[in-house]
């Protein structure tokens, strides 16, 4: 397929690059390098989070049996390889904490916010490159601290990733002292990193779009990252405040959440979920944005309903602030409040449904290429639908009475966070890998990884709906204590075996990622024949991205445009007047 714009293949730079290795790759202010730094850090934490999941699954599948190879674990965690309730409860807590804060959030926002925003809007870098660097290097100690918590006396935090007070506010209740405090401090530090980052992304998108890149010519990935950044900016400080108050209750003797002198346990929940619900939209919105970009590319068709998609993102971002009470229906808060939260929660299903239908509309009438990113994007749509539909059950307050704190919830959250966000991340990493590293990931390995992950993923999480419907509670170390849960041992074992196979399948992705970096096929500037600005510069782009500021003439996603017969895609930088061999006066809109 011929392309129109002549990509800049040569390394044209205005000045010679005299930066040292440390300036270029360690304390770099280049958004692309910082994005890759976040990528490496997050993938490491994703692995740790996955290993913690294996601990959880082992105990649930084979209660009180020694974990194979478990004797490497210390006596305080698993004597003779048998997982202790202490370790199990902190594994459950840390799996959630690490996956949410150190894997998914940085993968979506830290990696792609950094890497894509300047490239896709036509800017040479972020608004504040040094603050950008600070944002990464503040996240690193937060991560180190969080890992350190596993090695302190008393073990790591064990009050759930939601850390409800008073359980989390007084070491007397969990037996955990330093671990919970480390959890608090680490999140406060990470919060600072997130706030600096989001401030940077928002400022960059507002003030540094290249000429011609109007708001309604931004790709949906950028719209999603922009709205997500606003959510991060406004929600994370609430978490910071709450965690500070929790830490003070623990170490300073304050009484915010301890009832003895008038504190309110429910205050913690309101604060946490007022942050927590926007947080889960932070964990899905960028994924939706990437999926839009990839689906349109794979279908070779414009995204269906671009404006509706933008408004839906805005609606989700806005409504996400007024649904937090749906995590607290059974908390003892006023039932009337419960009803009002149910209404807003039911309504937030609508913009998500709109997006799903528009993705289907994008596929309709297309000419679909099943490259690896496309497979992951399609899986996102399919799995997100399941996750979204399961949400309707819990939005109904009476049904929630039954399914709250059961595995039905665990199924729902994993369908949106893994089936949704993680598949989108796999797709986005594969899609933008050539731009990041100058090489392609191996497509055969990619396809095998996709199929295995998709199959095992569903075998792990779909039956959790059933577990929940039978009443299986969350966060319990040994379900066999309850007679009504004894018959579910076989299902738990099946899920565990599938989970181990799922984890093992990720080795393919890890291998592909690492080996392709050194031995992957060299990537051209635009391997996916895409319309975005990032594909008009070499893979990887030079420092500064372009020798001169690009000018934008087209909306995004102009695939198979009737204005253009020479190629099946029209880059955003391509003026219709300047198509080689043509003298038509096609107007860009």
């Amino acid at each position, binding site marked *: 397929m011929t392309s129109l714009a002549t990509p800049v293949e040569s390394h044209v730079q205005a000045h010679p690059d005299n930066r040292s290795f440390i300036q270029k790759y360690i304390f770099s202010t280049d958004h692309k390098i910082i994005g890759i730094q976040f990528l490496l850090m997050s993938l490491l934490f994703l692995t740790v989070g996955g290993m913690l999941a294996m601990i959880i699954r082992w105990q649930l599948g084979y209660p009180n049996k020694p974990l194979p190879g478990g004797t490497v674990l210390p006596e305080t965690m698993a004597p003779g390889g048998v997982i202790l309730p202490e370790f199990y409860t902190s594994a459950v807590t840390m799996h959630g904490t690490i996956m949410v804060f150190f894997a998914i959030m940085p993968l979506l926002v830290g990696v792609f916010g950094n890497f894509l925003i300047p490239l896709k809007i036509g800017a040479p870098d972020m608004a504040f490159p040094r603050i950008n660097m600070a944002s990464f290097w503040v996240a690193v100690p937060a991560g180190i601290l969080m890992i350190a918590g596993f090695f302190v006396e008393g073990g790591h935090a064990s009050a759930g990733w939601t850390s409800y007070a008073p359980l989390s506010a007084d070491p007397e209740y969990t037996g955990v002292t330093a671990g919970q405090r480390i959890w608090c401090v680490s999140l406060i530090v990470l919060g600072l990193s997130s706030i600096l980052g989001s401030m940077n992304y928002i400022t960059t998108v507002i003030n540094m779009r290249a000429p011609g890149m109007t708001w309604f010519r931004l790709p949906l990935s950028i719209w999603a990252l922009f709205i997500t950044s606003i959510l991060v900016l406004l929600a994370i400080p609430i978490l910071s405040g709450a965690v500070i108050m929790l830490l003070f209750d623990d170490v300073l003797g304050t009484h915010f959440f301890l009832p003895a002198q008038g504190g309110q346990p429910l205050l913690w929940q309101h604060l946490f979920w007022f942050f927590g619900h926007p947080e889960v939209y932070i964990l899905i919105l960028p994924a939706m944005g990437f999926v839009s970009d990839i689906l349109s590319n794979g279908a070779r068709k414009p995204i269906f309903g671009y404006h509706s998609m933008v408004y839906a993102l805005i609606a989700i971002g806005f409504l996400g602030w007024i649904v937090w009470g749906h995590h607290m229906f059974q908390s003892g808060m006023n039932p009337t409040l419960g009803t009002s939260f149910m209404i807003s929660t039911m309504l937030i299903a609508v913009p998500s449904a709109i997006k799903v239908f528009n993705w289907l509309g994008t596929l309709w009438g297309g000419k*679909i290429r099943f490259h690896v990113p496309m497979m992951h994007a399609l899986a996102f749509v399919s799995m997100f639908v399941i996750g979204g539909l399961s949400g309707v059950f819990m939005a109904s307050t009476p049904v929630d*009475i*039954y399914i709250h704190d059961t595995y039905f919830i665990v199924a729902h959250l994993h369908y949106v966070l893994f089936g949704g966000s993680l598949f989108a991340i796999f797709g986005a990493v594969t899609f933008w890998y050539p731009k990041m590293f100058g090489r392609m990931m191996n497509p055969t390995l990619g396809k095998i990884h996709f199929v295995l992950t998709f199959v095992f993923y569903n075998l792990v999480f779909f039956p959790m709906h059933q577990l929940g419907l039978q009443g299986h509670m969350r966060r319990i170390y040994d379900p066999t204590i309850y007679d009504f849960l004894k018959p579910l041992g076989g299902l738990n074992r099946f899920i565990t075996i599938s989970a181990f196979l799922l984890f093992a399948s990720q080795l393919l992705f890890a291998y592909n990622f690492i080996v392709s970096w050194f031995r992957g096929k060299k990537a051209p500037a635009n391997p996916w024949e895409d319309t975005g600005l990032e594909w008009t510069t070499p893979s990887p782009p030079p420092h500064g991205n372009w020798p001169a500021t690009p000018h934008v003439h087209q909306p995004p996603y102009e695939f198979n445009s009737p204005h253009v017969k020479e190629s099946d895609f029209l880059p955003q930088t391509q003026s219709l007047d300047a198509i080689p061999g043509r003298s038509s006066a096609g107007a860009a809109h």
Partner: protein
Amino acid sequence: MNPLSWMLPPSASTFAGDIDRLYYLILIITGIAFVVVQVGLVWFLIKYRDRPGRTVHYTHGSVKAEVIWTAVPTVTVVIIGLLSGRVWNQIKGRESVPENALPISILAKQFEWHVTYPGPDGVTGGSDDFTIRNQLHVPVGRAVVMSMTAEDVIHAFNVPAFRLKQDVVPGMTIRAWFQATEPGTYELGCAELCGLGHYRMRAVVTVHAQDEYDQWMRTARQTTAQR
């Protein structure tokens, strides 16, 4: 009971039926949506796959389609919401506790349930009350209202067979009610992570026929009086 079933396990309380019916309604609606979307997705992938000679139907969207797929989900969720709101008020509404419900006090603590029964005066809070650990005895066909609080951390009173779940919070006294419909024994578990022993914070709920209950109550009061 087939663990892979979408059917709910048997229940034994008056409002369980309302909850279960709502669940099945949502199951049907979401089931239809699920089938339509997934089948549509697969069909499009097959029909519109890249083949030589395929032309793309270039379009930016359709306002009519947007209106339809905005209106239909909105109407659907509003209906589900209205039906749910009604049932919610009947179960958890502050005014929903039936008259003449039998009062019981529950104290949740790490890691057991203390159940306080009224003495002969018929109300809790008196010196003639007695407390038993991890056993909740109630008569069939009679509403029971529990005043619940916790001593230390947040727990959750959870009897799946009654479709009843209520967080129990230290510093608050929360009321929850139910009316059992079938004699038998059922399990009560904690449904809010409350520490290391959370997984074994189990109690037994025994629903008695009325005369059996009266017998049990007499014996229990005697035993307490003797202590």
